[in-house]
């Protein structure tokens, strides 16, 4: 960007003098060339960016175990039928217990605790409070240390986690591996019991083995208040205990005071869930890995689980995908084109193997889209997100058994396989001397065994945003020319300050965006119960009022009449620069958000042009341009885009409920401290507003 400006200035100097010069250096010439032909190049780059995005499923590589110490599957499983029957016994006992006692107190927890202590584990119970999600504008990017106890503790609703720790016989107690089974103690279904069965089979084995070097913690999380909250509460107590008196301790007969135990630094965590029967006969294992703000666990962890599940235990492994994309016809066409190109390339040179079958391409794209979407949203897809806040690699394994829950024969086999999978994974992690660091942290998955690393997927983004500085530079030159023509005042002609007015306006609108971002916090503070719809209306009106106020402040408003000479080209140039900086910053924080944001913002910014002259000129080309920019600006409005995405996913929205839905969605974003919220408020919204300004610029 700066370099471009420099070339620009050099160009300026020469043309002002009007003197013939010898050839400047090639890089300068290239810069001038790019800037000069920016319309062409911006189209080419943007198209290439989109194409590169579409090409990503083709460029996906097969996963491999990067860390040699993991050695998955190299040890024979020591799990015996006896262990599996231990698990069956626990499940049976819980079922019987439930039949006899109707969801009372903490008796189920005690039962599980009893089982754990029989397996020579150290057992304790932890009470926690289901905490309401509150918006704290300054808590973005702050660590989980900002966990605060609520003042009013009510004994009416609290959860109790059961935790068992197996100490490694000869270990030094510096590290531990955590197993989590979310379990609803009050109304857990039959399938949930199975997850307890699997882990207790495993626990029964681990209490005997001698190869453990890290302690094993089994956390039975009370999922009455969601899967995430109990795990987060346990982790907070594990890492940041307050040492203060908690009123929660007095609540029940179950004495949990002061017996919280720890087992060193957590090396990795596995969350096991069993739910719902799969449509197929075989058992399906789904892997969820996205934590907050698009952070992913180390790829090796997924690789180990995937390797063991596929090659040892015969699970059908899958990751989430956007189902609606599977049947989309345009993706099919794209896939077929790529397949044909791949075939042609293959005939030219048999070594060029980049073509994949169209069906595989569609599958890959649907998975990729889902990966990108969940990363962009920045909301963790499961309790593993809580671990990521403490730099612990964690994934959720969700198993959908292919049999009805009352089938005893298959249940035993299911326990055996499930706990062998966990045993293998734990054994691999147990082998690790160092923490996970060998493999990738920045990647997107296109299938459980295929991934795209950061080096590949950032090409698409780089191509998309590459056109922005070029266009900005060329517009700036353009605007300067126009200004020089319109004003002959030498003082105002001082060229390096020409962008200052425009920058002021852009800054003002970004400030507005910042304030609008913070507004929900104050709206939440408004006393009384309000529906999400009302709140969103409140937000909308205050924001519009603010916008009006800003517009009327002279000097800040893009429409201010004082500077009638303000060129829209310079305004657009500064807007594009701001968008470029915002996108680049966001790509560091959360790549997927930046990628999707760029897809939306780059064409909007590039095509934004005053519609007045276009209407005046009545030429088809300019009218088309104006129409396109209108459409893009409409789509670019966050609410509209939200509605469109919802529609694409397949959830229809009625007009009035849209506001409420949008509010709820945003609320979830800030509750999870998603940087996407900041991006929408502080980059997307101001840039969108500026584009609107340019669209209706009185030039």
């Amino acid at each position, binding site marked *: 960007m700066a370099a471009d400006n420099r070339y620009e200035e050099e*160009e300026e*100097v*020469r*043309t002002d*003098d*009007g*003197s*013939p*010069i*010898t*050839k400047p250096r090639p890089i300068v010439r290239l810069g*001038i060339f790019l*800037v*000069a*032909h920016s319309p062409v190049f911006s189209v080419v780059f943007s198209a290439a960016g989109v194409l590169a995005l579409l090409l990503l499923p083709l460029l996906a590589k097969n996963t491999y175990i990067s860390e040699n110490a993991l050695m998955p599957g190299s040890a024979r499983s020591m799990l015996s039928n006896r262990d599996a029957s231990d698990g069956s016994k626990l499940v049976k006992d819980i079922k019987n217990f439930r039949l006899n006692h109707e969801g009372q107190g903490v008796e189920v927890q005690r039962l599980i605790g009893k089982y754990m202590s*029989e397996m*020579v584990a150290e057992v304790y119970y932890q009470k926690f409070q289901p905490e309401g999600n509150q918006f704290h504008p300054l808590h973005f990017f702050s*660590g*989980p*240390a900002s966990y605060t106890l609520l003042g009013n503790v009510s004994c009416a609703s609290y959860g109790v986690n059961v935790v068992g720790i197996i*100490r490694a*016989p*000869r*270990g*030094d*107690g*510096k*590290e531990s591996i955590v197993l989590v089974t979310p379990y609803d103690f009050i109304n857990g279904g039959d399938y949930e019991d199975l997850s307890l069965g699997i882990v207790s089979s495993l626990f029964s084995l681990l209490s005997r083995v*001698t190869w453990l070097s890290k302690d094993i913690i089994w956390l039975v999380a009370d999922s009455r208040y969601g899967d995430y909250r109990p795990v987060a509460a346990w982790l907070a107590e594990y*890492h*940041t*205990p307050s*040492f*203060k*008196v908690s009123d929660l301790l007095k609540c029940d007969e179950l004495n949990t*005071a*002061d017996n919280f*135990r*720890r087992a*060193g*630094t957590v090396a990795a965590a596995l969350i096991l869930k069993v739910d719902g029967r799969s449509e197929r006969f075989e058992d399906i294992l789904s892997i969820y890995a996205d934590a907050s703000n698009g952070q992913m666990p180390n790829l090796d962890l997924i690789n180990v689980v995937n390797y063991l599940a596929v090659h040892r235990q015969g699970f059908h492994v899958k990751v989430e995908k956007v189902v609606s994309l599977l049947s989309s016809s345009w993706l099919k066409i794209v896939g077929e084109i790529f397949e044909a190109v791949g075939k042609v390339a293959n005939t*030219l*040179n048999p*070594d060029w193997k980049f073509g994949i079958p169209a069906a595989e391409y569609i599958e890959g794209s649907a998975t990729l889209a889902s990966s990108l979407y969940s990363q962009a949203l920045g909301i963790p897809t499961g309790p593993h997100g809580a671990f990521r*806040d*403490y*730099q612990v690699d964690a994934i959720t394994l969700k198993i959908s058994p292919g049999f009805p829950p009352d089938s005893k024969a298959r249940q035993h086999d299911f326990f055996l396989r499930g706990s062998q999978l966990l045993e293998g994974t734990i054994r691999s992690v147990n082998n690790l*001397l*160092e*923490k996970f*660091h*060998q493999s990738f942290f920045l990647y997107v998955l296109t299938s459980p065994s295929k991934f795209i690393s950061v080096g590949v997927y950032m090409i698409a983004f780089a191509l998309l945003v590459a056109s922005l500085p070029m266009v900005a530079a*060329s517009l700036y*030159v*353009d605007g300067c*020319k126009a200004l020089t023509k319109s004003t002959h005042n030498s003082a105002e002609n001082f060229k390096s300050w020409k962008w200052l007015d425009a920058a002021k306006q852009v800054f003002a609108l970004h400030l507005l965006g910042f304030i609008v971002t913070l507004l929900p916090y104050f709206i939440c503070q408004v006393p009384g119960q309000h529906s999400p719809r009302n709140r969103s209306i409140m937000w909308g009106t205050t924001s519009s009022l603010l916008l009006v106020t800003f517009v009327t402040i002279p000097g800040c408003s893009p429409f201010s009449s004082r500077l009638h000479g303000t060129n829209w080209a310079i305004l657009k140039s500064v807007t594009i620069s701001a968008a470029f900086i915002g996108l680049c910053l966001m790509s560091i924080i959360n790549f997927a958000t930046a990628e999707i944001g760029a897809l939306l913002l780059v064409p909007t910014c590039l095509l934004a042009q005053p519609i007045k002259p276009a209407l005046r000129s009545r030429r088809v080309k300019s009218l088309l341009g104006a129409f396109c920019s209108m459409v893009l600006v409409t789509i670019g409005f966050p609410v509209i885009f939200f509605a469109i995405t919802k529609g694409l996913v397949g959830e229809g929205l009625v007009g009035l409920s849209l506001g409420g839905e949008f509010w709820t969605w945003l609320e979830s974003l800030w509750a999870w401290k998603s940087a996407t919220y900041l991006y929408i408020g502080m980059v997307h919204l101001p840039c969108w507003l500026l584009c609107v300004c340019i669209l209706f610029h009185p030039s």
Partner: protein
Amino acid sequence: MARLVRSWILLLILQSFLVSIAFGSKEVEEFSEALLLKPLPDRKVLAHFHFENRAPPSNSHGRHHHLFPKAISQLVQKFRVKEMELSFTQGRWNHEHWGGFDPLSSMNAKPVGVELWAVFDVPLSQVDTSWKNLTHALSGLFCASINFLESSTSYAAPTWGFGTNSDKLRYGSLPREAVCTENLTPWLKLLPCRDKDGISALMNRPSVYRGFYHSQRLHLSTVESGQEGLGSGIVLEQTLTVVLQPDTTSVERNTQPSWSLNSLFGRKVVGRCVLAKSSNVYLQLEGLSGHELKNVDSEIEAHKLWKNADFELSLKPDRVLREISSFLFIFDIEKSSDSEPFDLGLTWKRPSKWLCQLAPLHASRFLMGSGNERGAIAILLKETESQEKLNLTNGRCTIKVNIFQIFPWYVKVYYHTLQIFVDQQKKTDSEVLKKINVSPSTDKVSSGMMEMMLELPCEVKSAAISIEYDKGFLHIDEYPPDANQGFDIPSALISFPDHHASLDFKEELGNSPLLSKFKEKSSVRSYTEVLLVPLTTPDFSMPYNVITITCTIFALYFGSLLNVIRRRIGEEERFLKSQGKKKGGLKQLLSRFIAKIRGRPIEESSSSSELQSSVLSSKLIFKIILVAGAAAAWQYFSTDK
């Protein structure tokens, strides 16, 4: 020749005579071996080997030893060691189940890895040098990387928190040292019978290292003779503490597993070490039910003691000693031989449960916080069901707790952030803190150390101490090979100076070093866990990327900087103006660019240049196509098989 030999022999006889006179006048070197076995409440068995070697004071230089290992005596003489203890430990001592109040646990529950402390008898200025030399000597002697304790960043000089009040004390520990048989072999070499005979013959390596905990310890102290001109004697105490899990065949989970020496170690004792003055095997049984304690006077009752409804010993004990809460069966292994090996066994008949004596407070230490920047170290003291707690000072019942911990320099501890919570109430320092001594760390020079004495009320339920720290950055060559594992903070030592662990026997003790050791009053000590701090670690696996990126940045930066400094744009312009008056092509090219930027049709005047440029560009395109074609062809033919 013969004369020479004769004179030699004469000399030797004379020498041995002199030596025997020297020793005969005082004491002689003594060696004793003992093994203590103790069933633990959690179905495990503790075996504690104890060897003591005494060298009496003597005045001869370069003296000859009969039993005492020469290596150790040289060590003591060379570095003037007054007292020293070295321990190699693997596994964690389970304070809850294996006890924390008896002398056995407070002396032998050691932190993971290597721990070394030594008191020197040299001027204060030479202490550090002696320490460094000692670490190297021990490193060679015991096949361990004790020499890493040489660096001033890894040891500390505790003043009072360690228990021994001396300013010539140095303490260091290596938590990551892997302990294995290579450390045991040199340790065994110091014994007169090695592991060939006597009790040490039981040390079957697979059995020892299969255990849940093993700690080998070497403690030496010099005994001043008090006489003028006489040197000091040395007492070398070697212990090996192992916690083993007997193989259980019985399905019943409640009964304690029965065991014998053979089943525990896979070997039997076939005789004593003939050089040992005493060789005994002790069996300590804790928490026997109360009725047995009353009537153990007569011989029949004593017989009942080792063969009763609860358990049965396979051999008749030579003596039975009573302690407040335990019994000690003493066996002499002198009678055992190859034909009749000594194989003590214990068979449990009924399920029995008992509790160990626990330390007044149970200590655990953990890290708080997350991320690569800040954190806190917390020590949590929790009440236990300990019997002995009362210590009345000024009419108030208090427990005194000493905490001693070392912080490596890269853990930058902020001592002012020390917070103390007693029973979940925040206390000011003056309320509970009796004494504190802090020596802050210096970056890359010395480690930090904290000694503090707390005085807690007896009825305390829990106490927590937390102290915040920053994580430092290491230089690239300071990272160990497995940097991504994280860095260790050595164990903290928690001791209770007012609580003394000792076994109080009612009967008169024989001449047994082990038992007299147990009878000595020593303060209760326990070590906390080792902590693992993840520090920011550079990506060592990517030097290539780092080099290329750095070089690129440097090239770009210096290139543009040089341009800015060196080039004078104005001068160049003038020069070009004067030179390029004739050529007008580029000016037209530029004007065309600007015309394009403005979006206006190109003026007529530039048509010629446009033609020229189009010719140029077509040439360029032709060239590009040529090169691309050549590349494609080369690719095609080079890869086509």
